[in-house]
């Protein structure tokens, strides 16, 4: 299995298209950082305009590496899944399209081994992409903007998190985001076992994400009952690590406002991943390879 995994990773990282996602992410994050560095005070002013008069902090302090990272992730984590789908959706269908699937499937490795190894490779790629996001969004932002207390805008208030209480929250949020992205990778991967070209799984995954996201955000009561079942609703659970408990207006270090809800979202995402992988295995085992 380890040898097969090495082969899959070798193939992924030898393909030029693999690096498109890394380049796109780098470009987007750097553009956001440059914009915030140039004109961040105005952005923070807008962000703080609706807040309580009792809160006052100079925009230069609010605009620190931690807050910038939060802003970037808010804007980016809905688009990274599309980049993940580009590779995960190509894992099986791309081989079928190239004509190499029949060569792989006629070698001694079983279909399940082949599928699991490919899924694992897609997962490693997804994690690599997320680590890259973390390095750029958090690491470079800290270098450019420094560190300070983190200000998180809520509906009617702000959460202020102490400098020393932020880093672990980011680690937890990235770990949670990785579960969410693996769910997206599983969906794209599952779709890729059904067809012989890569466009359908990639476009299919993107369409599902867009439709589910619209349903999540739409303010019509009819869709309220559907929302908890959409995996895209739970993908936003990473923000939960930045919503802290407070006592008499003072936030409690190390606390998470609603940890059970965050954990539940993580479990739902994991469940969806296993479901998509299970369907992929069930289908691929029976598939007649005619490509």
């Amino acid at each position, binding site marked *: 299995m380890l040898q097969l995994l090495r082969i899959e990773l070798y193939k992924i990282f030898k393909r030029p298209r693999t690096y498109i996602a890394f380049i796109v992410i780098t470009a987007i994050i750097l553009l956001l950082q440059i914009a915030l560095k140039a004109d961040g005070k105005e952005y923070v002013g807008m962000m703080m305009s609706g807040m309580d008069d009792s809160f006052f902090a100079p925009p230069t302090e609010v605009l620190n590496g931690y807050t910038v990272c939060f802003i970037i992730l808010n804007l980016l984590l809905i688009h990274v899944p599309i980049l993940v789908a580009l590779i995960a959706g190509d894992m099986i269908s791309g081989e079928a399209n190239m004509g190499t699937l029949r060569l792989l499937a006629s*070698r001694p490795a079983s279909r399940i081994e082949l599928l699991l190894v490919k899924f694992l490779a897609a997962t490693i790629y997804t994690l690599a992409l997320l680590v890259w996001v973390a390095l750029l969004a958090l690491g470079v932002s800290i270098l450019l903007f420094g560190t300070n207390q983190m200000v998180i805008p809520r509906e009617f208030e702000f959460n202020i998190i102490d400098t020393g209480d932020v880093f672990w929250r980011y680690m937890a949020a990235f770990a949670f985001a990785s579960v969410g992205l693996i769910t997206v990778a599983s969906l794209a991967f599952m779709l890729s076992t059904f067809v012989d070209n890569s466009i359908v799984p990639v476009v299919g995954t993107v369409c599902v994400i867009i439709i589910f996201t619209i349903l999540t955000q739409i303010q019509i009561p009819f869709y309220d009952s559907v929302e908890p079942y959409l995996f895209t609703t739970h993908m936003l659970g990473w923000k939960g690590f930045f919503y802290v408990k407070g006592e008499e207006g003072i936030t409690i270090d190390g606390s998470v406002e609603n940890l059970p809800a965050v954990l539940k979202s993580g479990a739902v995402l994991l469940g969806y991943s296993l479901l998509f992988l299970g369907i992929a295995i069930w289908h691929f085992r029976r598939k007649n390879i005619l490509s």
Partner: protein
Amino acid sequence: MAAIIHVKDLSKAFGEITAVSGLSFQVPEGQVYGFLGQNGAGKSTTIRMLLTLVTPSSGSIEIFGLDLFKHRKEILRQVGAIIERPDLYKYLTAYENLKLFATMSGVRATRQKILEQLTMVGLQDRADSKVKTFSQGMKQRLGIATALIHDPRLIILDEPTNGLDPQGIADVRNLILHLSREKGKTLVISSHLLSEMELIADSMLIIDKGKKVVEGLSKELLNPDTLHVELITGDKQRTLAVLKESEWKSNILDSKDESILVMMPAASVPMLNRLLVEKGVHVFSIRPKNSLEDYFLSLTRN
């Protein structure tokens, strides 16, 4: 000679379409086994079933005396194959492709071993070139090298000369003969190049519409002393009646359309003509078919 492949009553249907129907055959060890049929005859489906790419609807396949679907891993470790086009990873080099497929087959191939394989197919100078720069013929040869890299006991080649120029076809022919005669490998080769198959196949199976038409040793099927004679007369039923009363009654192979196919010694052809004339049958044509192409066409034209 022991059979290395034993196929019994193999059938495959895709929905309403039956691709292979009740096919049985045996491939003797150490031979070059030609697998012939028109496009859509069921050759590729059969080969895909031999490689577990397609699940049979019914029937059994034994390779090396073991049930293919129960001992898949053990069997496929000793099988090398190319199926239709030899599609490889275009963004990898020839060396990287061979290394990858060797590992997939459970073999740790050294650089020396890989270069030997590339030399065997005449690609030693292109080891580090990306496959996307290769011509169709070079890809075909590299495909054959990937099928051989783990030194398999059984080699299955589906249309191995597709896209090759005459020199390339001759090279592949020599390679097949070398593998069979010098290395003792068993080769199953499907091809529509009948003249090529005549030159290399020890045994042959001809299928049509998913069914076996004929199977046998090439020297028996294509024996120049024993002709396959196509007979066209003015009265087919009368001709058949005459033949059934003659010494050639057990030699009637086929009488599907207006013609009758009879196997007989070359020296007997004038005697057959005389007999039919004496019996009042108007003979329009008696045509010996001693090339594989003639034989193949006479068997499959319906």
